[in-house]
């Protein structure tokens, strides 16, 4: 199928692609956020440990 038709999705392109894009955003955000939070926490705690042992 030519790529243009694939994008067009039989006229429903906007609805289909917005749905899928939103799904990806949700999945990515909900995975990245805890990863970053964890790194942030560990950094915070190690700084606190260093201050304490000084």
């Amino acid at each position: 199928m030519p790529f243009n038709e694939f994008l067009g999705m039989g006229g429903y392109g906007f609805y289909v692609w917005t749905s899928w894009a939103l799904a990806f955003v949700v999945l990515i955000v909900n995975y990245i956020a805890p990863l970053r939070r964890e790194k942030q926490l560990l950094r915070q705690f190690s700084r606190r440990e260093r201050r304490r042992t000084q």
Partner: protein
Amino acid sequence: MLDTMWNWLHKLASPPMFYRFAGPAANGFGWLSLALLLPGIFLSLAGSPPDYQQGESVRIMYVHVPAAWLSMFVYMSMAGAAVVGLVWRIKVSHAFVRASAPIGAAFTFLALVTGSLWGKPMWGTWWIWDARLTSELILLFLYLGFVALQSAIEDRDTADRAGAILVLVGVVNIPIIHYSVEWWNTLHQGATVTKFDKPSIDWRMLLPLLLMAMSFTFYYASAALRRTRCEILERERNSEWVRELTGGIDAVQ
């Protein structure tokens, strides 16, 4: 064999053990999820036929339905973990409940928005008060209520147990809510019949649907374990094992 399984579960109840287990487990589930997601995406978007009535817009179903299934599955998991936390007083379990809530709410939100996007070309309106979407909306309220209660209570222990009660009350109410919304919907059934539940589905559509659903499920396991690790760190910040853990980390990785 049951003995060793019980021992292992018992060990998991300890925060440092769970923390250590959850990292690789989250990675494992993450890869599983991805492994299912890729064929799922391919089949959903390209490898399956369009619907004879709805055309290509049916491809939204491959995101909408799994999201709706997960919104329920996450709540059920929260309820299970709530029971474990209350009955056996396992704090790690409560941490898991708290970690799951935003993920469940996100899936519910996704189900609602994709449902709306699926409906617009079909019925011409952005929102329709059909049984499925209305139930999802009420489920979103249940999730948000849980999050609101947790943030309103300062003491972690109290928040955990109050939240657990709320989740259990919610889980008991969900079938009641579904039944009442179903009944309400048939009462006011207009000319539109929603296409969200297909009576008999072609296996070429069922396969991508199941792949996406399983992918989302493993994703939930992975993301929830990651969030639980953060929860555990925050709760145990002053404990010996966390200090040992972070004392050894000098440079930021």
